[in-house]
C-alpha cells in the first residue's frame, strides 16, 4: 500500500476572486514507503503547494489526500496527528527557531506530541546526531549558532518528531557547496537508517540525482513525471522543454554520444561519469 496517495487534488488560491490561480491541478500520485523522492520543477510550478497538502497545512479545493490509506480530511481534529506523522521542513527553516536553547527548540515538536521528558530527550539527542550537531551546541542559544548550524538545528526540530514521512523544502538553499553536500548525505543517511519516506524539494538536478531513488517533476501546476531517476533523465528533451535540464555530467555524456563516441547516457553523478570514462580510456573499449 502506498504511504502517500493523492487523488485528483486541485488547489486554487483566492477561489471565487478575479485573481484566483490554480497552484496545482488534478494531481494523482502514489508514493511507496521507503522511497527518497526528489521533487523538481520551475519556480511557481506548484512544488511547495503540493508538499503543503501532504501534512494538511493546505486543504485541497477538490480531491483527497491519503496518508497510510487514510483520508486526512475525513475525520475532524485529525490534522495535528497527521502533522506529527508527516514532518515538513520549510525553505530557510532557520527562521522558525525561537527557544532559549537549541535543545528546547528541537524539543518543541516532541513536546507538542505529548511525549514524556525521557522520550523527548531521547528523540532530541537522536535528531541532533542525525544532523551532526555537536552535543555541546545543544545548550547554546539558537541565535548564537552559525548559519549552517541553524539550518541543521531547524531540520533536527522536524526530525525529532520521528515522522514516518519527512518532507524537506529546498534544504540546501543558500548553502555553500560543502554545506550542500553535507546536508544531502545527512538526509540520505537518515533515510537509510530510519527507513522512513523522504521527499526532497529542490531546484538542483545535481542534488536530486545524487541522492534520490525516484524523481517527481512538476510543470505548470501539473504532475509531469514520476518515475525512477534513470527513466526521468532519459527524457532529457521533454525536461528541456519545461525549462529544466538533466545534470551537467549527463549532458556531457549525451554530447559525447552525439559526437559519435560510444557511451551510455545513464550517468547522473560526476563520480559515476569519472569511473565510466576512466574504464573506457583504460580498456580502449568499454
Amino acid at each position, binding site marked *: 500500500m502506498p504511504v502517500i496517495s493523492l487523488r485528483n487534488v486541485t488547489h486554487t488560491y483566492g477561489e471565487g476572486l478575479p485573481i484566483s490561480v490554480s497552484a496545482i491541478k488534478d494531481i494523482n500520485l502514489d508514493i511507496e514507503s521507503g522511497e527518497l523522492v526528489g521533487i523538481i520543477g520551475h519556480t511557481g510550478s506548484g512544488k511547495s503547494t503540493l508538499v*503543503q497538502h501532504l*501534512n494538511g*497545512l493546505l486543504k485541497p479545493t477538490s480531491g483527497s489526500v491519503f496518508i497510510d490509506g487514510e483520508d486526512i480530511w475525513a475525520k475532524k481534529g485529525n490534522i*495535528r496527528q497527521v*502533522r*506529527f506523522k508527516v*514532518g*515538513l*521542513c*520549510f525553505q530557510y*527553516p532557520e*527562521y*522558525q*527557531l*525561537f527557544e532559549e536553547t537549541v535543545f528546547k527548540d528541537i524539543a*518543541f*515538536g516532541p513536546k*507538542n*506530541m505529548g511525549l514524556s521528558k525521557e522520550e523527548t530527550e531521547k528523540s532530541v539527542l537522536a535528531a541532533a546526531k542525525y544532523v551532526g550537531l555537536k552535543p555541546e551546541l545543544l545548550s547554546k542559544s539558537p*541565535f548564537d549558532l552559525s548559519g549552517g548550524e541553524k539550518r541543521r538545528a531547524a531540520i533536527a*526540530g*522536524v526530525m525529532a*518528531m520521528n515522522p514516518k514521512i519527512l518532507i524537506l523544502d529546498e534544504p540546501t538553499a543558500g548553502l555553500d557547496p560543502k554545506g550542500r553536500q553535507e546536508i544531502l548525505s545527512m538526509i540520505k543517511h537518515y533515510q537509510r537508517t530510519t527507513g522512513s519516506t523522504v521527499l526532497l524539494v529542490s531546484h538542483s538536478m545535481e542534488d536530486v540525482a545524487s541522492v534520490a531513488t525516484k524523481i517527481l517533476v512538476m510543470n505548470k501546476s501539473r504532475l509531469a513525471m514520476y518515475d525512477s531517476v534513470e527513466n526521468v533523465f532519459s527524457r532529457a528533451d521533454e525536461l528541456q522543454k519545461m525549462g529544466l535540464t538533466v545534470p551537467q555530467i549527463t549532458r556531457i555524456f549525451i554530447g559525447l554520444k552525439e559526437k559519435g563516441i560510444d557511451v551510455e547516457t545513464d550517468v547522473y553523478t560526476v563520480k559515476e561519469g569519472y569511473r565510466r570514462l576512466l574504464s573506457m580510456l583504460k580498456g580502449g573499449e568499454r
Partner: protein
Amino acid sequence: MARDITIGQYFPGKSLLHKMDPRVKIVLTLVFLVVIFLCKNFWAMGLMVAFLLGGVLISGVPFKMLLKSLKGILLIIFITAILNLFYATGGKVLLDLKFAQITDKGVYTAIFMAVRISCLIISSSLMTYTTTPTMLTDAIERLLSPLKVFKIQVNTLAMMMTLALRFIPTLIEEIDKIMNAQKARGADLESGNLIERAKALVPILVPLFVSSFRRAYELAFAMECRCYTGSNERTRMKQMKMSFLDFIFIFGIIVLLAGVILLNRFFVHLI
C-alpha cells in the same frame, strides 16, 4: 486571519478618483469626515450617504471590498448602537424596562451612530483603495511641509510612514510562513484558554521580531549605500499638480457641505 486587514490596501484602477491629486483627496476626505458628523436629520444624512455611494460608483471599487473593511469593526458598530440606545435621555419613551428606558431619541442616536461609523470607515477606505501608499505618504509629506517652520523633519516622518506601509504585506507574508512552520511542528494555535493561546504566540512572535530587526538593519544599510541621509532636501521624480478634475471634486464637496447645512436648518434636528 492576517489577510483580513484591509486598511492601506490599494485597488488598482483608472477611475476619476484614482486620477485625483492625492493631496486634494486627503483634504476632501477630511472635510467629508466632518460632514458626516454635521448631519442632524435623515434628509442631511441621506444626501451625505448618496454622495458617498456616488463616490463608490465612480471609483469602480467593488462594493463587496468596501463591506469587507466594515466586517472587522461590525462588533464595534453594534456595541456603540446598543449603548446609545440606552444612554440617550429625553424624548418620548418607547419602551420602559425596569432598569432602563428606550426613548425615540435613543433609537435615532443609535441609527445615526451606526451610519456615521460605517460612513467613516467606507469613506476612508475609499481613499486608501484609490491611492497607492506611496502617493498617500507623498501627499501627506507635502501637506505637512509647513511644519518645517517648527524644525520638524517632515520628510523623515514621511519616509518612516512609507516604509511602515511598505512592510505591512511583507510582515503578513512572514507571519504566515512562520505560523505554517510552527504548525508543521504541531503548534496548536486554535484551541486552549486565553493564557494558553497567548503562550502559543511566543513561537511566532520571537522569530517575527528577530527577522524584523534583521530586515530593518539590512534596509538601513541598503539606504545608506544609496546615500540616503534623511536631512537634505530631496527633489521628486513625480510632481503633483492640481487639475480641472480636482476643482470639480472640491466644488462637489462644497455643494455637499452647503446642502447638509441647509437641510439641517430646514428640517427638525433629530439628535
